[in-house]
């Protein structure tokens, strides 16, 4: 599969994402510069984490106006796969490719730590092959990671199984104590109605290298790859 990792000014997880996709998962990867318009025939676009445009104004708010976002939006509307992690998730919400928004953590502090999450269902490519009782340890690192949407939207995405992952405790229970940022119903990631655009605050690319002692994130990438390979 060919992946395109978008580089905005201020992206800082782009190299980490490229390393995992290319060196660990053996996929083809190109970097897509934010001023470009050519998607180079990629099968999937990844918006990496970071602080695009310094996250001044509001996280992701300026990045959505980047030239390449026209192509990303068009690609997504045609059913192309798009994954946004952390700042990438914020950008996808700002660009209205995903429902809801991400606001300041309830603690009003940036938080970086290992965090347990669990797949909510198995109906989207990104969580399809992850057992529902398999707790994943995936790092988070954000100041604005509190997922928020109005009551109707939350009901809608929960009814449609658009919630991808939820924060949980080590035993897999979705409790208030296990919620690191105040996200509504512990939501850690969501997809769009067509299940081709995925956003999540936790960083699977930070949990994929055996040398770092945690490879839970690979299950997420492998779920995606399994699905994509099966649909080539």
């Amino acid at each position, binding site marked *: 599969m060919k992946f395109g990792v978008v580089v905005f*000014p*201020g992206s*800082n*997880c782009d*190299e*980490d994402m490229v*390393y*995992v996709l290319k*060196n660990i998962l053996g996929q083809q990867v190109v970097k897509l510069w934010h001023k470009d318009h050519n998607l180079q025939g990629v099968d999937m676009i990844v918006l990496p*984490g*970071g*602080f695009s*445009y*310094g*996250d*001044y104004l509001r996280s992701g708010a300026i990045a959505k106006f980047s030239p390449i976002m026209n192509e990303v939006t068009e690609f997504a509307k045609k059913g192309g796969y798009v994954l946004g992690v952390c700042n990438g998730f914020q950008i996808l919400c700002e660009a209205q490719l995903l429902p809801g928004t991400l606001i300041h953590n309830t603690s009003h*502090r*940036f*938080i*970086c*730590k*290992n965090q347990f999450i669990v797949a909510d269902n198995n109906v989207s490519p990104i969580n399809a092959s992850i057992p529902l009782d398999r707790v994943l340890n995936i*790092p988070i*690192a954000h*100041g604005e990671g509190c997922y928020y949407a109005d009551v109707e939207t939350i009901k809608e995405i929960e009814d449609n199984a658009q919630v991808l992952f939820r924060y949980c405790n080590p035993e897999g229970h979705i409790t208030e104590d296990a919620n690191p940022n105040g996200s509504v119903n512990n939501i850690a990631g969501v997809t769009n109605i067509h299940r081709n655009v995925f956003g999540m605050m936790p*960083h699977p*690319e*930070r949990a994929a*290298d055996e*040398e*770092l*002692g*945690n490879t839970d994130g690979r299950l997420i990438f492998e779920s995606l790859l399994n699905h994509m390979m099966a649909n080539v």
Partner: protein
Amino acid sequence: MNTALYPPINASTAKELGLLEEEFEKIKELLGREPNFTELCAYSAMWSEHCSYKNSIVWLKTLPKDGPHMLVKAGEENAGLVDIGDGYGCAFKIESHNHPSALEPYQGAATGVGGINRDIFTMGARPIALLNSLRFGEPELERTKWLVKGVVKGIGDYGNAFGIPTVGGETYFDKCYNQNPLVNAFSAGIVKTDRIIRAKAEGVGNPVFIVGASTGKDGIHGASFASKDLTEDSADDIPAVQVGDPFMEKLLLEATMELAETDYVVGMQDMGAAGIICSTSEMSAAGKHGMRIHLDRVPLRQKNMEPWEILLSESQERMLVVVKKGHEDQVKKIYDKWDIHCEQIGEVIEGDRLYFYWHDELIADLPASTLVLGGGAPVYYREFRQAAYYSELLDFDINAVPEPKDLKETARKILSLPNVASKKFIYEQYDSMVGTVNMSTNRPTDAAIVNLKGTNKALAMTVDCNPRFVWADPEIGTMMAVSEAARNIVVSGGIPSAVTNCLNFGNPYNPEVYWQFVGAVKGMGKACETFKTPVTGGNVSFYNQTVLKDRVEPVFPTPTIGMIGIVEDKKHITTIPFKQKGDLIYLVGTVREDINQSQYLVHIHGIEKSPVPQFSLEEEYALQEQLKITIRQGLICSAHDISEGGLWVTLMEKALTSGLGFDITLPAEIRKDAYLFGEGPSRVVVTVKQDDETAFIDSMMLNGVDFDLLGHVTKGSIRIDDEDWGHVEDYRNLYENSLTDILLS
């Protein structure tokens, strides 16, 4: 330019600018005439303590500078550079931002992180890891809480956005830092050894560019301000604190990395303290050339800036770049890609003069060498005298200290002390994992281990200083700080390579403070020679003190040691947590009945005055050499050294990181409180598989290092001398949340 408003040139104006009368006379002598106001400002900034090291350099020169791994000597470049093999070098440095952080903790700390990273990438090295060493006052005070929150948020917001992981650090609380916190930031980066960019200007006619942010009035006289006493009036100096923009720094980094891949660069230097005057004079002096600089061509952020303000501005995220003539357009194209300023402001000329122009009018004419350290900058031998308190410490007698009635309750209290309890509140606000190189996240180690992807090597890094020990004996205490840094690297599986230091002291004109400084430098030199870790650079921060109505209280002498080591094979990495039930627990090193300067003595008994714990450099060296061997034989499952809180805390940290417990027996001949809570150095707790016991003992017999069997690892219960101390989980909340609870209360 409105020179009518400039003050007259005389000794009193010079004094206002922070120059001594003798320094004003020396300037006139060097120039052979009276300086004008702009020129006087230039000397004021360059001859400030911060830039000139005038009160410290004679002692710093005694530190060992050369080692087998060194690529550049101390002070030659913006940061030290160590050869890590395979054609790569590691650039690293630590720097203080104490005074700005005391007034404006958020920006003060943020710009400290920005500045230290520019020192690294200006050499062509991409930063890969950050550490920091922080000192605050009593955590219960509202001022301390404000400072901690501001400093930590400042470091976090800058480092997190810049995208370099903060992989380690230390935080220490004591009332001596109530007014004057210490904020020391460390950065390490990787560079191909054939791509190192030097901080020098050469090649007549080569263009000089200013790149990065626009120049504003922020931070003018920051360098002079950092060289003054902090007083109640210091808040008036707030314009002297700079403002950071990590986004700009990130763009500047990426553009610089692209530029470093080309052959167009002659030299580059970051603009930190003393702005344009510092970078132009230091690069010119280093390259034995001069420059012609047009200050009116500098991109400005605000109107009505006088030329002397442009010359001295400490606006952040700027660099001075000398480029090979004829490649101006290619260089501009790189900076254009990243949407940042790149303006030619002058050119390199023959000779060593700096000519500064304002709309073609020559406004300052200065020989570069007269401004800089090693050139015309003053060098002082300061008077020193043993501090009066020192002899009082020797009166301490352990027999006058009662043993606690309830050892368990005391142990619980110690685990909750601010200097012992988890610093989670602080480190969770830093992105410690970006870059996917932090090998210590899931496998905690005494020194942070940073992966060198695609190789079988890793880097080990640590920052250490127990300032109580240094206060109790500056020379021995600093040896202990170096030893602790080296020990942390060794027990983590690395080999110590080199040191950078941040020397935080009080007023150098106080002979007792200067005695602390001299002792510290002597101790550092001796220890660094022993461990073959040359001192590659760093910085000195004087004037850290609390000014009270009737007296001045210096902070503890705090020579923070930043050390880099190399892990030659990743299988040598040894971690803190217990590994499995039944493993044997050994204490390696000599145990003495010593509670001197321990957290236990100070915070449980309220006794501040005691000597430094007993220490021998030879003993420490033997311990480290022994552990290097035994770790490489694969006989040690886990290792953690003994520091604040003593053996008890070391064992608890091994327990809490693993979820396993321990069952140990204490020797009868040593007081239990001293055995559990004493902070005697040169000791490490290791665990060994039962099957490896004989091989471990054989290995340990080689060098005559003491070692004792303490007990064994349990499933979770804690037993001491056959008494039930509960379960490891009973202590988790206490250890993990005590400090957070204080800071958020």
